């Protein structure tokens, strides 16, 4: 998600100036995504450059409101209509960390798994507490944001459980080789799988 589309969505409600946009953005994401005013103005000037918003005359208090243009509306509609692609999201550092833990000598992988699970569980408890405390009808957008974070945390814990079960079954066969050996049967299998995956 971009701040760009967030601001466009807010301007679709009506014209706003920078501080109003920042406040409205934080309100609709329940402050899960704090913005500084600099980010708001930088984004507004890019949107203006691209013809998606236009500035209006300054008010007497010196505030310059912005409004969305037709091109901005079309861009926003396209954003709502397009699913977020998984490849647009950052690589999962945790998955990489566990994969490395498994092949690095002297690392207790089960402890790494447990430490992460406890941390994620703690976050889940806090999120649930926030949710429990926001049950007014007008809290719904905020609750949906919280739910999304709750389900992501849950998925992470389930994946960690799965990792732990796999670790129990895993029979370590000594230290991992420093480089993959192309003549290794596993490597050949992996390459074949990758090829089939790519053809699908």
């Amino acid at each position, binding site marked *: 998600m971009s701040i760009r589309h967030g601001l466009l969505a807010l301007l679709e409600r009506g014209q706003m100036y920078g501080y109003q946009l920042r406040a409205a953005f934080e309100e609709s994401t329940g402050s899960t995504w*704090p913005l500084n005013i600099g980010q708001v103005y930088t984004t507004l000037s890019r949107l203006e450059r691209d013809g998606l918003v236009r500035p209006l005359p300054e008010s007497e208090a010196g505030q310059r409101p912005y409004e969305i243009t037709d091109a901005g509306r079309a861009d926003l509609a396209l954003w709502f209509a397009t699913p977020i692609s998984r490849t647009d999201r950052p690589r999962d550092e945790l998955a990489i960390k566990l994969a490395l833990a498994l092949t690095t000598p002297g690392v207790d992988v089960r402890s790494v798994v447990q430490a992460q699970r406890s941390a994620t569980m703690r976050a889940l408890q806090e999120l649930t507490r926030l949710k429990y405390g926001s049950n007014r009808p007008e809290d719904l957008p905020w609750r949906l944001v919280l739910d999304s974070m709750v389900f992501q945390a849950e998925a992470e814990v389930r994946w960690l459980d799965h990792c732990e079960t796999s670790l129990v079954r895993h029979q370590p066969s000594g230290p991992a080789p420093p480089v993959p050996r192309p003549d290794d049967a596993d490597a050949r299998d992996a390459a074949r799988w990758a090829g089939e995956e790519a053809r699908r």
Partner: protein
Amino acid sequence: MSGSDDAVLELRAVHRTHGAGPAAVHALRGVSLVVRPGELVAVMGPSGSGKSTLLALAGGLDRPTGGEVRVEGQPLGALDRRGLAQLRRRRIGYIFQQLNLLGSLSALENVALPLELDGTSGRRARALAMAALTEVGLPALGDRFPDQLSGGQQQRVAIARALVGERRLVLADEPTGALDSQTGEAVLHLLRRRIDAGAAGVLVTHEARHAGWADRVVFLRDGVLVDTTAPLGSVEQLLSGSDR
């Protein structure tokens, strides 16, 4: 974990071994746990880690082979079968995945049953049962029989039965089992409310989202407690952490 004077539930170095000799299965190996009023503790762990054994011992449904279980300061080992049954009826509420509602009794009668078995007068038992049904949001359905209720409503009746009267300890084993996520959440909401009103609870679950309702989450592995978590101190810390 300092003094445990106000503990509703206390497990002291509890062991539970099934069988003997080389074939013995050590379900729990020295588990200690204190649950105080207003506290919900979730127990998580893989299948076979001892979760359900822990719950059965806490509720006096099973006896430890070592260590001690206390409910409201009372060592369960010192009670005979009759005393134990009385404690279970009066002070402990159980919520299981299998609801065990009696099909020939109405919702209200199902909820009133444990009180009546304990000698409470019919009229008073019904009044308390109605209060419990109201607490779970079903004041109008007391006359319905279990087969006339939806799965979610049946689960609520089972919860009302677990909470009726003056239960101080609520033990739940995967209480949201077959329910959809919204209905399951409503069940946890009810449980949480009762705990906030001063009961103590233990929730066995394999779902992290449900364990999220707890004040503390303990992890069991091979019959041993391996970790405990409490929520983060501050919301800010959490939210800034989410913005990776």
